[in-house]
Structure formats: structure tokens, C-alpha cells
């Protein structure tokens, strides 16, 4: 036997007047975001974004891109915190829930693979913003694609700020 429909309850629950009575408590920011520039141009974009008033986001440059390919352990990749100096990737991923990588060419392709793998092993969502298109970023894309849950191609420099804002970083 069909159950009776609670007539009209949805209609009552979705009026503008009703919405004033919804629970209104502060929404927690995302736990921690890490933003990593993989080459010189993208580091500049990351540095510009770092000037905004973020809650939990930290911003890094990956300077050792040439050596990255030979690293046996991705956690040992060296990052440079734009405020605090040199860091080890593995140490910076503790308690993180999203990592955003920014690339403008293929220089950081090997580093992207390491970061993607390190995040993947920890269950950290990874996003990639690629500032360019075509063959100049093909390597970066190929490295990001297996790990990045979302890729934005081609991204504009201000996409980073909009993405982090939307994520409450």
C-alpha cells in the first residue's frame, strides 16, 4: 500500500521566509590547503595569491625540479615555503585535505608526479592548474593527470584565487 504523501511539506521548507530560520553557524574552513608552484612563472602566480588573507592555506615553490626525477622517496622533495624557507614535502602534508599544483611549463613535471603520488598515498585531494596549453605543458599535464582529481586547462592566473576562495582555504 502506498504511503501517504506529506502534502506540501517541501513547499513550506523552501520559501524565502523559511530560509531566514535555517541554522546559521560559522562554517569551518577547509582543514588545510597546500599550494605549490612548479616553475618560475607559476611560483609568481602562487606568490601573488599568497598575499590574500587566507585561513589555512600555505604557499610553496618547488625549486629542485631538476633533481626531482632522481628522488627515490617523493616525501623527500624539497619545497620552499614562501614565508618560512625550506621544507620537506612529506612534513608539509600532515593534516592536509587539498593540494593545488600550478604549472606553466614542463619544468616541474617530475615534481608534479612526486607530489601527486605523495598526496595520493595520504588520501589528499589534488588539483592542478595549468597556465597554458599545447606542447609546452604536455609533460606537466601528463604528470598531473594520474593524480589530480581536477585539472583546469588552460587556467588563468586569477583562477587560483577563485578556487581557493570557493574552497574556503
Amino acid at each position, binding site marked *: 500500500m502506498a504511503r501517504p504523501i506529506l502534502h506540501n511539506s517541501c513547499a513550506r521548507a*523552501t520559501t524565502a521566509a523559511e530560509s531566514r530560520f535555517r541554522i546559521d553557524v560559522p562554517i569551518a574552513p577547509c582543514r588545510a590547503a597546500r599550494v605549490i608552484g612548479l616553475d618560475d612563472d607559476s611560483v609568481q602566480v602562487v606568490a601573488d595569491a599568497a598575499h590574500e588573507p587566507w585561513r589555512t592555506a600555505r604557499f610553496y615553490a618547488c625549486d629542485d625540479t631538476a633533481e626531482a626525477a632522481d628522488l627515490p622517496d617523493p616525501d623527500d622533495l624539497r619545497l620552499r615555503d614562501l614565508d618560512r624557507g625550506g621544507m620537506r614535502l612529506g612534513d608539509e602534508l600532515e593534516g592536509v585535505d587539498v593540494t593545488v599544483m600550478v604549472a606553466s611549463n614542463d619544468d616541474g613535471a617530475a615534481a608534479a608526479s612526486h607530489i601527486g603520488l605523495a598526496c595520493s598515498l595520504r588520501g589528499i585531494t589534488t588539483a592542478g592548474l595549468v597556465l597554458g596549453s599545447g606542447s609546452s605543458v604536455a609533460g606537466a599535464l601528463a604528470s598531473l593527470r594520474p593524480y589530480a582529481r581536477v585539472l583546469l586547462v588552460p587556467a588563468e592566473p586569477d583562477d587560483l584565487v577563485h578556487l581557493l576562495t570557493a574552497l574556503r582555504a
Partner: protein
Amino acid sequence: MLRPEINELLTETGPGTPMGELFRHYWLPALLAEELPEDDGAPVRVKILSERLIAFRDTSGRYGLMDEFCAHRGVSLWFARNEENGLRCPYHGWKYDVTGQCLEVPSEPEASNFCANVKLKSYPLVKVGDILWTYLGDPESQPPLPEYEFVHVPESQTYTSKRWQESNWLQALEGGIDSSHVSFLHSGQLNTDPLFKGSRGNDYNKGDLKPYFEVTDTPGGLFIGARRNAEEGHYYWRITPWVMPSFTMVPPRADHPVHGHIWVPIDDENCWVYTFDYHPVRPLSDDERSAMRAGHGVHSENIPGTYRPMANKDNDYLMDREAQKRNEHYSGVKGIAIQDASLQESMGPIVDRTKERLVATDTGIIKARQKLRKAVIALTDDGVVPPGVDPEHHRVRSVSVVLPHDVAFMEATAEDASVRPGVAQTTV
């Protein structure tokens, strides 16, 4: 998360609002051609971008769309008599042609030219495909007519329906570019709906609930690629085009007709959802048309004589908890269109985006909002014509395809994602 002022900017489309001005640069569906089926037939009330209008087809077969209210005393011309190439207000007999020009004011002397100075605001109304399109903007900036493929294939190959959705247009559109909900909300229908079943893609959809996304900027909007695991070494890609401001297509399944939507603001708390199905190279079968009329696929079963769905918020969308438990309908609501509508309307008339908690996989939605906002600012500050106005931007297709792991979807499917007359859709 959006700041309140950005949410208002994107959701308010009435006259004089920035987003309203943006919408007034496009040809928009005003009504289905079936709503004005004959010369001198009944006029139809149309509300679009918060403007109340009246549409009619005169004795000579010309379409008209103009201010709903008589210039004399403000009577709704829905009550008018449609006769001898004009609408005549039944109150005092004032008569208007399809351009809104007043032709007769019976109370004035026969030689009077009073009526020559009375003209209702009017807009063009043009039939392209099954839709009557209007342009509410500056006549000087009127663009060429729409060139979406579904309105240009032969009539036998296309079908369009519409339904009233009781929510702001933007939250409805955002559902259209959010591919990840399909594996959940619509999972019950993928293997049973007559317009969906039989596709290998359905198995990929149901077998991988955590798709990866690639969002690609295009001149007219975005392509959003959703990637799921397929056979060893391969990915199943579903590629959704969005053409600004509110056109999307759903990636195809097997040889079923291809479908999509256009969301048109009625006002800030309601929108029309125009839903189409077409096949690029063959007529729709009788069974397919019957299924569409019955509300299968992405269409809705409407209350006869109206465009309001049978399942709507006044009857809790005919929620069936037993069907939910059986996984016949994942949410308990029957039909893909109403599954979407029920959840989007449940957010409230205009969802408060200051309270949302987005995740990285919502990047398609984030980017779409950003493109809309930028287009509004460029239009307002510098008069830049927004993306999607150029008919070249309309010539897109959705795609579903299986590709090797190392192949970039946009490069591999550039041709498939464009309209190719006489060539079937690329589908799995």
C-alpha cells in the same frame, strides 16, 4: 563559497541588473512553437527575465511578443481577442499589431492619429526549430539567430519539451555542468530508462563513483571532461559542453538521441528548463518520441495543459521511499528531470552560496561562475560582447568516448566535440 554581492550579481536577471543586461545580449527561448499552433489562436502569457509579456500569432502567421498590459488601463492582453492581424483589448477595444503598435483606439474620432503615438514595448519572436526565440536587448546589437545543432536538424530528428522549475536559473544550470552526481542521483535509471539503457558507458558510470575532471576554457564557455576507469589502460570520458549563458549538453549513451538543456530565467526565483533530444543523422523513432512525451530520459511528465511537472514540490515530488530502498530510484523520486528539480528546488528559491562547502571536484562550477562574473564586468565596464553570443560558439557537441590513459581528451576529441553535419555523434 561566494560573497553575497557576487551571488546577487549572478542570480538577479531583471531589467537594469548587470546579469540581466548580459542575458539581454542573447537569443533566448521564449516559448515552444507548439504554444502558438495556429493563426489567430489564443495569446500566451510569457514571463522572461522578470518582464511580463504576451505572445501571439496573428492572422497572417506573424509572431509577436510585447508588453502584456494594455497601454490604456493596464489590462492583461491575455484576455484580448486575436483578430484581423492584431490583439484587441476586450475592455475598450484598443488594438495592437505584432510590433506593439496601436492600430485602433475606438473612442477617438475616426480621423484622429492618437493611436500612432501609442506603442507597447515589443521584442522579436522568431521560430528556429521547435522553439520561438526572442531577443530582449538593444536592437542595434541584435546577434544572428542561434545555430545550435538541435534546432537545425530536420524536424523528424528532434524533439523539445519544457518544464517550470521553481528555483533560480543558476542553481539549475550548475546541476547541468556537474557530471559527478549522475553516478548517484540517476544511477537507478541508467540501465532501465528507455532513452539511456544499453550503453557500455552506463557500466563505467556505475563502476567508478569517483570521477576525475578536466575543465577546459573555450571561446563560448567550457568543456568539462569527466574521466572514469574503463578497461585496462583506458579511461571512459564524458565531455559536457557549456555555452554561455545557459546551454549545456549531456554526453550521449550508445545510439540514443543526444540531449541537453537551456535554462531561461522567468524571474529570480523561477526558470524554464527547455529540454531537447535529437539525433544528428537519423529520425527519432516512434518509441523514442513516445518515451520523451511520457517524461523518460531527461524530459518530464507535465500536468496536462501546463508545463508544470506532475511531480512537484506541492506533492513532495511523489516521493517513494520503497523505491528508494529497492534502489529503483536512488533518491526515491522518479525520473531524471524531477530528480534534479527536486534537489535543486530544495536548496531554496535562490541558494545561499555564502554557506556552501565546495570541494576541488566542483571546479567546473567554480570556473563557470567566474566566467559569468567576468563577462558581466567586461560588458558593464567596457561593452565587451559576452561569450556565447557568436553563433560559431553554438556549434558544439557532447561526447562520450574511451581513450588510452596517455591521451588528452580535448586534443583527441576536438572534431567530435564540434558539429559535423551528416556525421553521427561520438558515443559509447
